[in-house]
């Protein structure tokens, strides 16, 4: 995924125009495991939403798996999301009306409209991989916080995405569980080569990531590991 000069402003018209992102240049390499750090109000969520094709940038271009996304309509962006991206939210956001297994299958189900027995098997396999084989039929409310988040993580993997965007995946977990979930993410990254971008507040967890991307006041800070985009310090 590549971002070129991505800007985002809100407001306009009667309310004052506020620019949240001032030209982001960023490239995520296949198989990377990156942390996105930044204080509240730095534009992290906006950046994540733009990368997740949930919001459109005001200016700039976003390429995903070689496809330019500017000017695509909602249906096309939805299809791209379904095919290339996985989402892990801070609060697991599992669907309460469905079992763990059904929740895992949901991205595929939602995209294709139906699921095959093979898809079901893959979902079961994913659950087994995170040690939840026995909990497949349970509803989210019957699971612990750590279990819920593990289900949410394998749900993000169901469609074999190229990039998983995780928004503070350990935000509401205790330290030990957070460490376990983080270890799981690392493991999935190593074993499958899935690219991860993880937003976190927790410097301790970010330190465990090979790449740290820092966002301050809508601008990327040099991270020293992979060279930041040249225009990161200015517009």
């Amino acid at each position, binding site marked *: 995924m590549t971002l070129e000069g991505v800007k985002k402003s809100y407001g306009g018209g009667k309310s004052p125009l506020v620019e949240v992102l001032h030209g982001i240049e960023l490239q995520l390499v296949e198989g990377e495991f990156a942390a996105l750090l930044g204080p509240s109000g730095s534009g992290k969520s906006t950046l994540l939403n733009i990368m997740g094709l*949930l919001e459109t940038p005001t200016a700039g271009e976003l390429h995903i798996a070689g496809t330019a996304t500017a000017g695509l309509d909602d249906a096309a962006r939805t299809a791209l*999301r*379904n095919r290339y991206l996985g989402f892990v939210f801070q609060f697991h956001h599992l669907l309460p009306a469905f079992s763990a297994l059904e929740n895992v299958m*949901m*991205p595929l189900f*939602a*995209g294709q409209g139906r699921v095959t027995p093979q898809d079901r098997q893959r979902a079961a396999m994913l659950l087994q991989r995170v040690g939840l084989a026995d909990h497949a039929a349970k509803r989210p409310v019957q699971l612990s916080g750590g279990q819920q988040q593990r289900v949410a993580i394998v749900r993000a993997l169901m469609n074999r995405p190229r990039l998983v965007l995780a928004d503070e995946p350990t935000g509401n977990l205790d330290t030990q569980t957070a460490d376990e979930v983080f270890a799981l993410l690392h493991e999935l990254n190593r074993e499958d080569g899935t690219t991860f971008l993880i937003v976190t507040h927790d410097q301790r967890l970010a330190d465990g990531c090979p790449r740290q991307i820092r966002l301050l006041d809508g601008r990327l800070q040099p991270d020293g590991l992979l060279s930041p985009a040249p225009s990161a310090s200015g517009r």
Partner: protein
Amino acid sequence: MNFVWMVAWRLLREGRFQTALILAGVSIGVGVIVYITAIVSGLQANIIERTLSTQAHVVLRPADIVNQAPLTVPGSVKLADIAKRTQRENTIANWGGIVARVRGMPNVSAVAAMASGPGVAQQGGVRKSVVLMGVELEDYQQVVRLDNKLQAGRLLLPTGTALIGKELAADLGLQPGGRLRVQTATGGSQSVTVGAVLDFGLKDLNKRWVLLPLREAQNLLGFQRDVTEIYVKSERLFEAESLAANLALVTGLTADSWQSSNGQLVTALKSQTASSLMIRVFVTFAVALGIASVLVVSVVQRQREIGILRAMGTPASRILAVFLLQGGLVGLFGSLFGSLLGAVMAEGISRMAKTEDGSPLFPVALDGELFVTTALIATLVGVLAALLPALRAARLDPVVAIRG
């Protein structure tokens, strides 16, 4: 399993209380509609049946004899005003051919000729003015049922017998087998035996109607071989008017349909139909609004879940379909419960409220067609009512929806 069906079903099942509420609303609405429809159509069928039990659907009479319009020359003065002429002994000759022809026409189920005229019935010094109606009993019964009107005696009409109404029988102190004398204004007079006493359902008819064999009535009334009316029974009751127009054209006689002979009844039935339609339309609106409002609440409550589904790549059209289907399912199931409810209510009142003679005061007409139509309409209304909430759900911005 299809995504749309599965998600719609789960959301309905999950929102138990709301689903129960909305189902109850739809059921009650549909119940009222089914009940009203059953009662109104039952009542109407009953009224029409009672009214038509002594009438033909179409009556053919001789065409009116009218004066030829006087020739007028422009600028001339009219010196005399010619009065309308009386329709004196205007009868249908050669009716055999007409009857045969009418029998062969479409939408005609039975035809009967009748020679009728005024007369006097007397017995033991009591004289009553009556209507003498000469009929071929078999033909006549095809048009006007008599077996359900028989009070005493047998439904046979050989020469020398008469069938009379029960009031006349009481006035003259007659029973089957008794004798009376009938006279006509033209001087005809004959003594006949009472074959049967009938109850026509109306006091006036019971006082006046005397059925005689056709041949004897023709002789008494001096019609020779002519008749005065031809009764026609239509296969399709409500097409009697077009049949009448058709018959008038073909036979050259005047044709009156039951609708034109019962103008007030038809008006009453029409206004009743209109008001029951109004009730149904407004109840349908209320049901639709109920479905829509509950679904709107459901969309708001499930906003976050919809946002998550959208974020993970559910097309907006699929979200739309999920909520439309919920509306349709609610309409369908609601109409099933509602039909049951309406049928039970209608049957209940028809069993409870009885007239003096034990027949139901509110006869109900419950047929399969009513239920099928109701279910179809309710499902459609459900889908339409769900349109607004569904559009709202489909247009949710996932970012805003997830943030809550």
